């Protein structure tokens, strides 16, 4: 159904713009969808579906075809690329750069936090960026960006060497909290938090760990530990108070 590729874009544009030939417009759209796809691919992998990007990109393509001025001596592709990219970027601006990117970074940070613990436990050493990326099913670049943004590490335990093999599950991540990893800057907050950790009982540490590092709800923790949700709630508040007191004490 598509015309011979002998017919140039310009001929088709002329047929559409001068004779109102809708099938020429269809043909132009179809012919340039690979271009839309190639451009959309460059923006894929940022939490948006490729199909959605192709769709908004196609809107850009259609706008470019409709607004093309025959007497301007440019190629349709040259003219269309900024329009297609413009639509894709507008889509990101509306949905992503304002909302989803911080959200996505946040989600990724949570994932990385969890993986850092898991991998540190299973490997008995700090995982590499490649290992984290593979486990998180994201690009290494995403991992580095998340780490570099510093946000990941505000809630993250330092990857650290296995210090003792006292149980098969590897080092208790909380126990590794105070040790300084050489690969990363340690935030003052984390140092302060680590120095306060010793005031907590083993059970309190475990509950805080489940709540803030594993992201379990109070009910889930209650189930896990075998106490009531009310009790969990009370213990969390109590543990946080203890930590705060201990940190304030070290600061004054």
């Amino acid at each position, binding site marked *: 159904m598509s015309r011979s*590729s*002998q017919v140039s874009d310009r001929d088709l544009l002329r047929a559409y713009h001068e004779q109102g030939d809708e099938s020429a417009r269809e043909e132009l759209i179809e012919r340039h969808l690979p*271009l839309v796809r190639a451009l959309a691919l460059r923006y894929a992998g940022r939490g948006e579906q490729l199909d959605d990007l192709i769709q908004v990109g196609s809107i850009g393509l259609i706008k470019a075809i409709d607004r093309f001025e025959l007497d301007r001596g440019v190629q349709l592709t040259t003219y269309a*690329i900024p329009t297609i990219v413009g639509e894709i970027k507008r889509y*990101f601006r509306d949905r992503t750069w304002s909302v989803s990117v911080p959200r996505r970074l946040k989600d990724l940070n949570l994932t990385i936090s969890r993986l850092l613990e898991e991998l540190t436990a299973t490997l008995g050493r700090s995982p590499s960026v490649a290992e984290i990326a593979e486990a998180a099913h994201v690009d290494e670049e995403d991992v580095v960006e998340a780490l570099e943004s510093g946000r990941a590490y505000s809630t993250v335990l330092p990857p650290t060497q296995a210090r003792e093999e006292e149980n098969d599950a590897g080092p208790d991540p909380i126990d590794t909290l105070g040790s300084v990893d050489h690969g990363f800057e340690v935030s003052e907050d984390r140092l302060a938090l680590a120095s306060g950790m010793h005031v907590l009982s083993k059970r309190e540490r475990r509950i805080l760990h489940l709540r803030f590092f594993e992201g379990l709800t109070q009910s889930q923790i209650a189930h896990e530990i075998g106490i009531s949700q009310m009790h969990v709630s009370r213990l969390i508040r109590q543990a946080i108070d203890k930590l705060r007191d201990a940190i304030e004490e070290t600061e004054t």
Partner: protein
Amino acid sequence: MREGTVHMTSQDRNTMSLRVPAKPEYLIVCRLALNGLAYVAPVSDEALSDLKLAVTEACANSMSHAYGPDEGFVTMRVAVDDGAVAIDISDEGTGMADPAPSPTGANGGLDEGGMGLALIRALVDELEITPGPQGAGTRVVFRKRLTPTV
């Protein structure tokens, strides 16, 4: 086989220079280097994303075509001045395939290289393509203003 090396120098206060092997796996090094821009200049997420994509396209040209099977390097220089970021990417390879679009060809009438350049043009404010520094290879220089003009 020789291991690749990344060499980085700071030529003056506002310029960073990065020389990496012309291999696709070093592209990420160039992209990540741009992240640091956010610390020295008011680069928005969107502008940073545009610059990274432009760098990706420019490096992709050099890394996949410039040297053929030979080993070579790609140099990226990034300068921040006057509320703009200027990026200069060059190789000393055999030069780019003719970037002129074919009139009706497949792939929307552009080969990958041609599309890359057209894409860079869409993302930055100024673009210049010249032969490489020693007359060989290709040099792609572009500049993006940090405050959008209305």
